């Protein structure tokens, strides 16, 4: 296998066989152009993601962490880890995170039978795309400040407010929307989850260009958007409970361990192919070599920590410090890797030929990634928030 998969001894023979099987299947299934796009882009188009989703669905792997009864393969946490590792190694396009990771598990855990029947198939096939309406201009890491309201009417709900940082909102069909249904209680207590079609009257979307120059996030304005009664997921005022459950369910998601390992190995190859001023491969330049060694150490630490969490994952408890730990160390590592990439590619990373502005290049993709990656220590609860959680839950401070 071309990529360095380490720590083989941590896996049983069955698991290693499983990994080889899914890895070789993934490499067979994946169209070369999609692998190429994945390597050289930060954000993929809906068309590309949908195409790949359909291929995966053909194999029953489009929602690889779902239980069998809902259309997933029913894998163990360790099998999912191995699948995700092979998935990253194959340069398979990232799964659209909202439908598969967020909405699916929320619906099959808390939704009505009708909601499951209506929405799960579209996620599995990739025919329906979702976005997440949690954050707001005044409520980022602080969801208690959420201002969007849902008012009960005779036929359903009327939603008013504004959502921010709505990733993929511009090509999503549906939004899972957190709104305040009880303003008399404090903090996160009065929030509920709703399903909102993106073409609902009163919903307007406006693009936000990020510092990498790309359009992946949006602002969404909800102006008296009416949704039917059964747009509510689960019980009223339990939205925050559901959101937290999910956080607990996917403790290691934010670690991005497989992506980091894969990127690191690719960057190593680039450094082996790039010559320094002395005509020597950069990878053999001692200053770079040492930086690669430090990141190798950090990647191993993250891999080992994620595996440790998976090995003892019990679920059902409040999201503990694990979620926060892997968020902090995983995001730090992602930034370390792209910072090293900027030094590996040097001038090539900051300059694009004017006549080839849209031509894909490894260096340009790293630059985009590096810029966009400033966000990983901010989103999904900033690292400062995570550290406060660690201090409280793990250290009892």
């Amino acid at each position, binding site marked *: 296998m071309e990529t360095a998969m380490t720590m083989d001894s941590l896996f049983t023979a069955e698991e290693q066989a499983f990994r080889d099987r899914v890895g070789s299947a993934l490499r067979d299934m994946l169209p070369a152009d999609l692998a190429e796009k994945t390597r050289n882009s930060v954000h993929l188009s809906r068309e590309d993601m949908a195409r790949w989703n359909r291929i995966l669905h053909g194999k029953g792997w489009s929602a690889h962490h779902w239980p069998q009864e809902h259309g997933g393969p029913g894998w163990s946490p360790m099998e999912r880890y191995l699948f995700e590792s092979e998935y990253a190694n194959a340069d398979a396009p990232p799964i659209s995170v909202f439908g598969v990771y967020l909405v699916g598990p929320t619906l099959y855990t808390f939704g009505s039978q009708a909601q499951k029947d209506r929405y799960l198939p579209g996620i599995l096939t990739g025919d329906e795309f979702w976005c997440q309406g949690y*954050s707001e201009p*005044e409520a*980022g*890491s*602080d969801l*208690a*400040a959420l201002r969007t309201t849902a008012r009960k009417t005779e036929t359903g709900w009327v939603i008013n407010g504004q959502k*921010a*940082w709505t990733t993929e909102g511009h090509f999503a069909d549906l939004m899972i929307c957190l709104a305040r249904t009880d303003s008399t209680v404090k903090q996160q207590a009065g929030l509920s989850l709703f399903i909102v079609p993106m073409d609902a009257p009163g919903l307007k979307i406006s693009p*936000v*260009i*990020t*510092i990498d*120059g790309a359009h992946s996030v949006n602002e969404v304005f909800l102006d008296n958007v009416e949704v039917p009664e059964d747009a509510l997921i689960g019980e009223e005022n339990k939205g925050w409970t559901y959101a937290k459950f999910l956080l607990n369910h996917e403790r290691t998601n934010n670690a991005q361990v497989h992506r980091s390992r894969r990127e690191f190995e690719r960057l190593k190859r680039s450094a082996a192919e*790039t*010559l*320094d*001023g002395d005509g020597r491969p950069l990878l053999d330049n001692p*200053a*770079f070599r040492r930086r690669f060694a430090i990141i190798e150490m950090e990647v191993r630490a993250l891999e080992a920590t994620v595996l440790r969490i998976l090995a003892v994952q019990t679920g059902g408890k409040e999201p503990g410090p694990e979620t926060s730990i892997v968020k902090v160390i995983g995001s730090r590592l992602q930034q370390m890797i792209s910072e090293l990439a*900027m*030094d590996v590619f*040097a*001038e090539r*990373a*900051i*300059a*694009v*030929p*004017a*006549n080839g*502005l849209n031509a894909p290049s490894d260096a340009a993709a790293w*630059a985009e990634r*590096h*810029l*966009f990656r*400033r*966000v990983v*220590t*901010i*989103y999904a609860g*900033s*690292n*400062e928030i995570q*550290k*406060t959680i660690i201090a409280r839950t793990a250290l009892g401070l």
Partner: protein
Amino acid sequence: MRRSEEKMEEDRLLRDSARRFFEEQRAWSPTGKHNGQAAYLDMGWPGMGLPEELGGMGADLSQCLMAVEEGGRVLLPDWLIDDVALTAGLAPLCDKSGMGDLLGRVPSGSVRFVLVTGDRRHPPLRLAKNGTDATVTGRSGLVPDALRATHLLVCAENAEGEAQLAAIAVDAADGVHREAYHLMDGRKAGILSFDGAAIPAGNVLASGEEARQRIAELTDLCTAGLVADCIGALDAGFSATIDHLKTRKQFGQPLSAFQAVQHLMADAYCDRENLRSLTIAMTAAFDGPADERRKAVSAAKAYLGRNGLAAASRCIQVCGGIAMTEEYFVGHVYKRLQTTAALFGNAEDHLATLM
């Protein structure tokens, strides 16, 4: 470092007028559209470091870099670095054939020099003597603002590996190809290919040891300009960040009230102050021996690429999501620093010269 009271008064006036000018005429906006393109020609900034008899203002390097810094504050898309910092170092060349005339046209903007060096990771540019004439061959590194230059100062080597410094008028030259590049921060640059481009007799300005010294000094001047520009950008980014922290509320308090945010910014502030100190020391070092000048420049440039960039990154972090948007100033400061960090040698390159 310690300037006379008179100089300091001059500095203050210069800084004030530069700041006012840039804020009024060239204020940064998210759309990148500035008023008064090239209006700073009227202010006489280009070639301000040239002696008055050449039409310059006789400003010293510290004042030249101050002008560059003020341009950095508004993330000026033009490269004052060449117009101001580089030309400040060209005065000693003005007795070379034709150079005096050329330099005299710098202040009006009708002549613009850029320094063209080889790509660090590739063979150097080659200059071959051919009787009294010469030709140059090879591909340059990334040259800031290459496409607006009228004249190239080419840093090359002859077959024996001896340094050569030559001037080429772009209009007059055959065999010079200019490839345009867009930089991460929105500025423009170019890569030049020389396909045996002819250099008339007399345009080889220096050879051997003299050329080596001259090239080293001009390279250091450009690098110093890059650092000064970023000091300005970082200062402005800081101000924007502080303003945001005082107004943006989270968990019922302004962000500025959180100790974690305060300490992140205090660390960034220490880095910023150190970078400014190193910039002052670097400027003073141009009056000293070449080896110490080189180290002072490398220390500042390496610090910019490591701690300066880290400070800009912290500004994004404490601002939160809004700093990730193209509309917001602070992200552009980061891009300015990240771009600059890669030009004229990155932090690894400059660390290597510090030992």
